């Protein structure tokens, strides 16, 4: 089974609660140290402009490049749910994963070791949502098994099919 995040771009307001909830859950007090980041996207020029947001953390890739390039085997993928996690004690802090990850997910703690979104694995196993999903005020972020997520997407698609991803506001 592969677990994953779902993200509904049309509902995200860029409030960044997900970023902070993750910092709170993971005690990431350092300035700018965050596992999740929100990117603001603007399209067009005045007067036809649209704005949208993208909230990203580790995607727990099906074929994780970070894991492939990890020289120590510190990065591993759980059979059970596909979560990509790091054995902190094995990581040597070589930063290879920073270069491999196409999403900019890996972060490095003060001790030089890599740390990143671990899908709140203990919470999920306890029947809770990841902290970012729980906090999301617009329910733009969700999670579930990839199968169920793509099924949901297909069901919703009929409704959203005609709505472009990002709407441009009129002059």
């Amino acid at each position, binding site marked *: 089974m592969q677990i994953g995040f779902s993200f509904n771009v049309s509902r995200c307001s860029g409030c960044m609660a997900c970023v902070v909830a993750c910092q709170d859950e993971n005690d990431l007090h350092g300035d700018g140290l965050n596992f999740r980041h929100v990117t603001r996207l603007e399209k067009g020029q005045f007067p036809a402009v649209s704005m949208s947001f993208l909230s990203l953390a580790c995607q*727990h890739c099906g074929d994780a490049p970070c894991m492939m390039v990890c020289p120590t085997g510190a990065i591993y993928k759980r059979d059970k749910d596909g979560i990509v996690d790091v054995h902190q004690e094995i990581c040597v802090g070589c930063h290879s994963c920073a270069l491999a990850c196409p999403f900019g997910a890996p972060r490095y703690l003060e001790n030089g070791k890599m740390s990143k979104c671990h899908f709140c694995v203990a919470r999920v196993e306890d029947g809770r949502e990841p902290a970012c999903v729980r906090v999301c005020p617009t329910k733009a972020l969700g999670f579930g098994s990839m199968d169920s997520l793509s099924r949901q997407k297909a069901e919703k698609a009929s409704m959203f099919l005609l709505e472009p991803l990002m709407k441009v506001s009129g002059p």
Partner: protein
Amino acid sequence: MPEPNLLVIGNGGAAIHALQAARASGHSGPLHLVSDMQGRAFNPMLSPYYLAGKILFDDCFPFGEGFYKKFDITCHLGSPVETLDSANKEVILKGGEKLPYDRCLVATGASPLLPPVPGLRTSNHLFTLRTAEDTILLHDALSETQSALILGASLVGVKVAEILVQRGIKVTIVDIAGQVLPHAAHPECAGILEAHFATKGVELHLSSNLERVEDHGSEAVFHFQGNKTIKADLCLVSTGVRPNLDFLNGSGVEIDQGIIVNHRMRTSVEGLYAAGDVSQGRNLLTGKEEVIGLWGNACYQGRTAGLNMAGQKTSYPGAVPDHISTLFGLTLVHLGNPMHQGNDVTILSNRDLSEGPYRLMAFDKGVLVGANLINGFESAGRLRKAMIRKLNWEEHFGPLTRVPSDQEIAQFLADVPDSLSIPSPPF
């Protein structure tokens, strides 16, 4: 039809990933591994961490003891392959033992290259760093060492220099080129690094041509063109590597710098595959086939070979030259070719380190072809993706006049269709 008999030569990253992938994809026939060395697979890139005292020697063998058992691999350890008889599909080991195969992977990696300098090869003070044995030898020598000469300001050379400096050893780095990291850093970036290395007490001798080495008891004397001499107790040669493929003489396999393979890691000879530092791969930036001496590339190539040998049809497109490492406290990223030249090339950099991390980006007709970053590496993976996908930055940013910020890079990539698609499993 019985499952084919698969044989892998080598016990490094490429080999291990090939074996693992073949088994994981359902291959139930025999899996043989042959290696010149005893013991588990060694990862050469971990030896600096051992030398620096950050990990145990045992930690340089990242694939656990149980690996071979778990994947039901028959190991033939301790004797190198001396001949590969492609006509009869068998390999002949040093002791004469013959092992047949249906499909064979050559994953023998590379060895340090020694420049043809009189007296160098025979010097008692000479060290290289590649194998487990090299690592032990160097490690044991360090306690006696007071001064060291690093021949070759390569990434390995500078990394070792840092470790030696931390141990209180006086270090001189010598290179024939006019800058450090001539293959990885743009001259401007190299200049910043050189100044930084100097503050750490490293003596740099660039544009220095070594002519001859003489051993004088406990030390060696290095004679350079122009009557310069340097003395040192220890010399680490880090001037590059060459593929281990002597045993392929007569096998008929096509070789350029390394073994030539296609996107499925097949060589020109039926049933024969190659992967890792011994083979070539496609430089996605130039489209040329060349040796890409990187751990990640070796693993991907090995996996691709293993899958294809086991009957899966998967391909590996290639890689861009890239590297990240922390040198004397600075994290340096090298991507593509920062030294790229041409009529339509724009090179942007923010020289002013006080304004934040250093970033140099080289664009050819708006496409990123090379980059160097010092410290600000959060965007490194995204830049690499943009480079591989040959995204046009000019179309997004307009005329390129200044280095984009991390935020702008994230925005740019988020805006590219499918650039957010998640890598999915190969089988």
